[in-house]
């Protein structure tokens, strides 16, 4: 019956074209918006996964609350009334038992690499210029296996040049500018305790995040321990997993037996990820709205067509055509519109995505190394777009098509006679 469906569609070209445009626009919009949003999201997630540790073990941070105190001292069955509720924070400056963690990581197949770190708040000084910031002490050979900091360094600079000791430092490019310094120059680092030491700048990095680029630096772990006057102290261990999908599970497992603060990359970036969820909901809502409008177009036009074609339905039934064949005539029309509109829509959407990927939207690494808009070309975007077009067309044509099968030839002939 596809023959008749095509005849109906080609007989009313304007009507067909209008519905087709609706389906095409919906599909194109879905592909383009998804490509743009997912491109950005994938880039950010990729950065979160690859640039940072998958799990970070940090020194204990515990907030004191009245509930904690009550639980420890009085149990559940005693009602306690406080004139001044307890408050405070029990922090630790270092990880309690780093060796336990190192042994665990060394013996586990799930761990790809780990890097012990000591983070210190410092004042960067050059002449009279003083800037407060943070320096991370790490073992360079281990650090580069956990983070991608090497990728963000200046030309011909190596992170491993920090060495195990030697008071060398790699600083954010923004910080370098703010200090008015240049590479190979020395600057002074001071801790809150008043210890000061000179560090030679051997390189810079640019992550594209101003908060880090303007106030952060890297040095060797031993040098920072010396600066703080604490040997063997570490405040963090960055852990890279063989399978990033295990981050949440392993993080929960480790929390069971340690008082140290343990955070997976998902927990650490939950705010960013929840923004993505909201973005996705908005994207789906917008594009589905467009497709629903197109689907209503199909529904309305097919419903009108069923009424207009009552006489034809009557004669087809009289000629021996069965209910399902009548259903096919109208169902195929919706499906043809859905399939053609879907295909043209995803091709157009692909074209729009290609075009968007050539647009310059600013410089810096936030938009990728080329400074062009980041656009995702995942196959699933196209599969979903086509499926939405196909299913919405199918659903919107089923009701009028089914109503056509309920018409009996004698009912139509009698009503025409009336």
């Amino acid at each position, binding site marked *: *019956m596809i023959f008749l469906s095509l005849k109906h569609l080609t007989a009313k070209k304007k009507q067909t074209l209008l519905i087709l445009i609706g389906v095409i626009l919906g599909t194109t919009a879905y592909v383009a918006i998804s490509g743009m949003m997912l491109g950005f999201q994938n880039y950010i997630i990729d950065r979160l996964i690859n640039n940072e540790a998958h799990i970070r073990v940090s020194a204990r941070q515990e907030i004191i609350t009245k509930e904690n105190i009550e639980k420890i001292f009085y149990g559940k069955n005693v009602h306690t009334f406080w004139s001044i509720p307890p408050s405070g924070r029990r922090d630790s400056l270092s990880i309690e038992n780093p060796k336990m963690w190192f042994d665990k990581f060394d013996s586990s197949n799930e761990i790809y690499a780990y890097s012990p770190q000591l983070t210190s708040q410092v004042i960067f000084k050059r002449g009279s210029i003083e800037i407060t910031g943070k320096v991370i002490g790490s073992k360079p050979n281990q650090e580069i296996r956990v983070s991608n900091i090497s990728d963000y360094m200046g030309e011909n600079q190596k992170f491993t040049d920090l060495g195990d000791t030697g008071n060398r430092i790699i600083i954010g490019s923004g910080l370098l500018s703010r200090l008015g310094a240049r590479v190979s120059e020395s600057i002074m680092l001071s801790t809150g305790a008043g210890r000061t030491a000179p560090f030679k700048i051997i390189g810079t990095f640019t992550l594209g995040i101003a908060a880090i680029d303007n106030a952060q630096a890297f040095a060797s772990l031993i040098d920072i321990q010396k600066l703080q006057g604490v040997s063997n102290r570490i405040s963090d261990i960055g852990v890279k997993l063989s399978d990033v999908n295990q981050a949440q599970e392993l993080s929960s497992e480790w929390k069971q037996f340690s008082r140290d603060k343990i955070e997976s990359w998902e927990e650490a970036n939950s705010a960013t990820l929840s923004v993505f969820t909201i973005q996705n909901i908005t994207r789906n809502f917008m594009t589905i709205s467009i497709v629903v409008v197109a689907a209503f177009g199909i529904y309305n036009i097919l419903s009108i067509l069923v009424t207009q074609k009552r006489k034809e339905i009557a004669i087809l039934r009289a000629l021996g055509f069965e209910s399902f*064949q009548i259903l096919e005539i109208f169902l195929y029309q919706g499906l043809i519109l859905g399939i053609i509109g879907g295909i043209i829509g995803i091709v157009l959407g692909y074209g729009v995505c290609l075009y968007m990927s050539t647009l310059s939207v600013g410089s810096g690494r936030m938009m990728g190394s080329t400074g062009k808009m980041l656009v995702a070309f995942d196959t699933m975007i196209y599969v979903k777009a086509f499926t939405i077009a196909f299913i919405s067309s199918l659903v919107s044509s089923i009701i009028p098509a089914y109503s056509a099968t309920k018409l009996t030839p004698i009912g139509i002939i009698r009503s025409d006679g009336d």
Partner: protein
Amino acid sequence: MSIKLIDVKKSFGEPPTNVLKGINLSIEDGELVSIIGRSGSGKSTLLYIMSSLDNASSGSILYDGDDLTQMSQKEIHELRNQKIGFVFQFHYLLQELTVLENVLMPARKHQMHKSMEDLALSLIKDVDLAGKEHRMPSQLSGGEQQRVAIARSLLMSPKYLFADEPTGNLDTINGDRIMALFQKINSEKKTTVIYVTHDKEYANRAHRKIEIMDGLIK
């Protein structure tokens, strides 16, 4: 004996209006039968029940001994497609299709339209529409459209041809041509033709005239 109606009754609505009040009728193969009666007498209802387009409230309709009321929907659709041809007062042509495509429609049910194209062309010629195979219905006169409908009804070489006031919308010249076609089909193809008409002259052209009055055969 080809078609036999046994005590066929039909009522409509609530409270029921009895349109047919017990019709007993036999139509032999190859007969040319006209059904006449006043408006509302039940003649069209009788034709539709006899031709399987409508259901009787009670009674039996036998086609070569097989009871229509006991057949499945699939068997009835097959019967309509293979053994019955219909011509209505309104031609009911599919406006998006050409004359040839319209005539070939019954064959599309079983995807036989390509193999039956020659037959369709000869039927178009038989109804004096040769050369107009590729015209659209809107490019034909009312009489020509009705002749296309007749050609379509004959494509599957039906054993029975039912016509409900086929000349009702036509002028005398075209009406005469249609009636002449029915007579020709009946005599040459031996098709059983049963038609409802208001026109006494056309009714008299049949081998047998059945008059319906108040739901009964007079």
